[in-house]
């Protein structure tokens, strides 16, 4: 496959944002007629690389060669002119137009009296047929078909503009197995037609099913480029999280060792808890004074499970008992009523209230508990604010600063303080240490251990499996919206073993696709 010259070659790409190098000397090659997966954990630089290739970000160093010629891409129009098309997870089409209109938008067939709609729809039908989508009626409104079909329409549209490179960024995250299979058949057809496809997905099985080649990024650096056949799942995960297998095995576990109080029975017991499209029915028990880790890749169901336990999403199956009594947790207020608090992974959209001050953000949940009619006095507010700014070492220590002006780590500490202030019995922490510096990370980890010692049940979710192993007494392993196992932590449990559990568990889809 190295015979032909690459259609895209990126060399030494560096992209800097103030204070951080999002990409540091990364190289990437894409050949005609291949599916090339870009892998890496959160913050590895996948999105940044794609945005550099599509002209959204300008690069600070390095060169981009397209068909052997150096190109400077300023804006997405440049990239499209160079034959690079992108299909995002959220489809960038016009839902109120028909399928055909969307496919041909800007390329309508013109007749003597303006647009010849019959010919336009004919051309759209042909474009769809080339991808094996002849069964789609181009006159149906786009909004009337499923998201999966909309994505296929977006791909057809990319082909109409003669794209030589197709970028698919997380196209499968909301598709079911059948829809994924259909997308893959379209991708295979395009590959045969010589299109180069850059594929990004968090589903390992899908990556292994469709890719010819895999490039791994970690912390903004190039980790390696591999043929799929040379790579097994465990090796890939090890490369993504940055420990070779030997190192993973050597790494000891200094897990949290608080004596868990099993005599009282679980604080919370969920049986068959699930929600269509986000989590298959799941059983779990959580005891006071223990730290339970949820391990799994993004999209595995780790976040979805925590959200159902809190009431952020409404479960549609299963039942939850708190202290042995059946409860109904359908909204965050229900969760809080039962002493459950959830710190979101989506800090910007569901965590901080950016234009309010640190003080207001800290007291928000306590105030919401008390209701609007019983405002916290200034003295009570000051007490909460002082306690948590000190305990969590929030910087700057000025409560009247707008929270949006704090660094990510300090925002996270304020959010942790917000939840500690309501004295939860069960605290669900979703990626509390993501994207924050080492110091803040250690402070948050220490706080988690301290909390469990005081009898709080803590759920700790992180993409860093090592971190989960280090902190948790029990590790619940999730994959592809399923709970696939539970590991009782001990001195001989390592991140590597968790990785192997994830890697070995193949879903139905993967087996089918590989054999296909």
């Amino acid at each position: 496959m190295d015979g032909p010259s690459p259609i895209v070659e990126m060399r030494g790409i560096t992209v800097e944002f103030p204070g951080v190098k999002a990409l540091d000397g990364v190289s990437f090659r894409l050949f005609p007629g291949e599916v090339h997966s870009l892998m890496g954990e959160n913050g590895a630089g996948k999105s940044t690389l794609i945005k550099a290739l599509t002209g959204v970000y300008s690069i600070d160093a390095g060169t981009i060669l397209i068909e052997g010629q150096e190109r400077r891409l300023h804006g997405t129009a440049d990239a499209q002119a160079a034959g690079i098309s992108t299909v995002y997870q959220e489809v960038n089409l016009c839902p109120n137009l028909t399928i055909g209109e969307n496919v041909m938008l800007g390329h309508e067939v013109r007749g003597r009296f303006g647009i010849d709609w019959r010919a336009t729809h004919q051309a759209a039908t042909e474009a769809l047929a080339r991808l094996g989508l002849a069964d789609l009626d181009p006159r149906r409104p786009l909004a009337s078909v499923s998201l999966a079909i909309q994505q296929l329409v977006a791909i057809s549209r990319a082909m109409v503009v003669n794209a030589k490179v197709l970028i698919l960024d997380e196209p499968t995250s909301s598709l079911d197995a059948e829809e994924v299979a259909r997308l893959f058949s379209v991708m295979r057809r395009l590959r045969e037609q010589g299109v180069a496809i850059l594929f990004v997905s968090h589903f390992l099985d899908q990556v292994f099913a469709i890719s010819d080649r895999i490039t791994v990024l970690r912390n903004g650096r190039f980790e390696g480029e591999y043929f799929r056949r040379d790579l097994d799942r465990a090796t890939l995960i090890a490369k993504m999280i940055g420990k070779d297998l030997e190192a993973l095995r050597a790494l000891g576990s200094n897990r949290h060792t608080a004596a868990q109080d099993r005599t009282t029975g679980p604080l919370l017991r969920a049986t068959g808890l699930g929600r269509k499209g986000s989590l298959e029915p799941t059983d779990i028990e959580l005891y006071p004074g223990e730290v339970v880790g949820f391990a799994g890749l993004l999209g595995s169901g780790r976040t979805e499970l925590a959200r159902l336990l809190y009431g952020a999403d409404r479960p549609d199956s299963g039942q939850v008992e708190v202290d042995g009594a059946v409860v109904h947790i359908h909204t965050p207020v229900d969760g809080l009523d039962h002493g459950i608090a959830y710190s979101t992974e989506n800090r910007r959209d569901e965590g901080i209230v950016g234009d309010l001050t640190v003080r207001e953000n800290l007291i928000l949940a306590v105030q919401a508990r008390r209701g609007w009619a019983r405002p916290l006095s200034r003295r009570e507010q000051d007490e909460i604010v002082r306690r948590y700014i000190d305990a969590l070492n929030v910087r700057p220590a000025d409560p009247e600063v707008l929270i949006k002006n704090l660094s990510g780590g300090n925002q996270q500490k304020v959010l942790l303080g917000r939840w500690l202030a309501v004295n939860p019995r069960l605290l669900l922490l979703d990626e509390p240490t993501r994207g924050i510096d080492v110091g803040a990370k250690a402070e948050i980890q220490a706080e988690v251990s301290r909390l469990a010692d005081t009898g709080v049940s803590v759920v700790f979710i992180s993409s860093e499996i090592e971190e989960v192993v280090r902190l948790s007494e029990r590790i619940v392993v999730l994959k592809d919206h399923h709970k696939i196992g539970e590991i009782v932590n001990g001195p001989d449990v390592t991140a590597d073993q968790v990785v192997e559990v994830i890697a070995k568990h193949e879903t139905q889809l993967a087996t089918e696709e590989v054999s296909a």
Partner: protein
Amino acid sequence: MRGVPAWLRGLVRRQYFWGIVAILILLGLNLIKDPTYLAIRVNPATGNLAGNLLDILRASAPILMISVGMALVIATGGIDLSVGSLMAVAGAVSMEFLNPIKDSSSVGAMLAAVALSLLLAGALGAVNGVLVTVVGLQPFISTLVMMLAGRGVAKVITSGQNTTASNAPFRWIANGYLFGLPVVFMLALAVVVLVALVVRRSALGLMIEAIGINRGASRMAGIKPRGIIISVYVVSGVLAGIAGIFAVSSVMTVDVSHTGYQLELDAILAVVIGGTSLAGGKFSFGGTVVGSLLITTLDKTVVFLGVSAPATPAFKAAVIIVLCLLQSDVRALIRRYLSGAGRRGPGGGEPVPAPQPGRDVAAQREQEVTV
């Protein structure tokens, strides 16, 4: 700015500073035309104060009411286009209720008329709130529907007539004097102070702002946005009802086609001039009061200067556009333009990166680095 006292510097930084300046300029214009414009006389017979300034205060009462309601709705990230129509509904209910009552001095009848009007206006406000939160319609659409429906309801109540009534206590609301000052303005002021106290002394203000800034995060923090948003639309409806009572009480007639007509637009302007962003979030009662007074002053000035009726809307628009430009970052824009003009080097092609406010960098970086 050196040598300027701190309180003045604080005032200049307020969003509504330019609103105050505009009021003073308008009053100044009127003063040029008539040097006695600002004179306040005491009516020797009654001891009541009279003059153009008092006319402005009196006329500002209805718009003060609906602007305060509008400010709360806008703070939640919504908008209430129905307030003008709800004024007509409240006016229609009062007039229709008082019309058949023979005893034109009955205080009880007045109170009943007021209560009935406010009840219906509040109920229609609740419908707005339910459409926005439970049904999930956009606030613009929900209240647009109510704006059309409200005027229809008013017409149904009066069977399409412009009903009149005679009730001295009701008439006193808009035309009476207390301690030499117009009752209607004092009532309006009292309502504004009451609402401001309730909102700012409870945690309601914090919750309204939190919802307006980030509804998702507020919900996750355990606030129930639904109840608060519905209450805010109810308050807006009740305040529109009060404004409607003020409006019909001065003439004791409801004109179902014109009472409160297009006043929702004046209210939105008053709120925006007061420095509350239409995007929701932080809001200001003080600014809203300034905005309402400015709109009223502008209306009075247009009449006083003899601007011809066809040119009135254009004159009003011009004043407001200038004001909005002053408030926005147009000054910063001009400064940036002047300093940036010579920045493009001989190399030419490289676009100058847009200067980003340093404060958001952390959040922005987060967002971009996360894959």
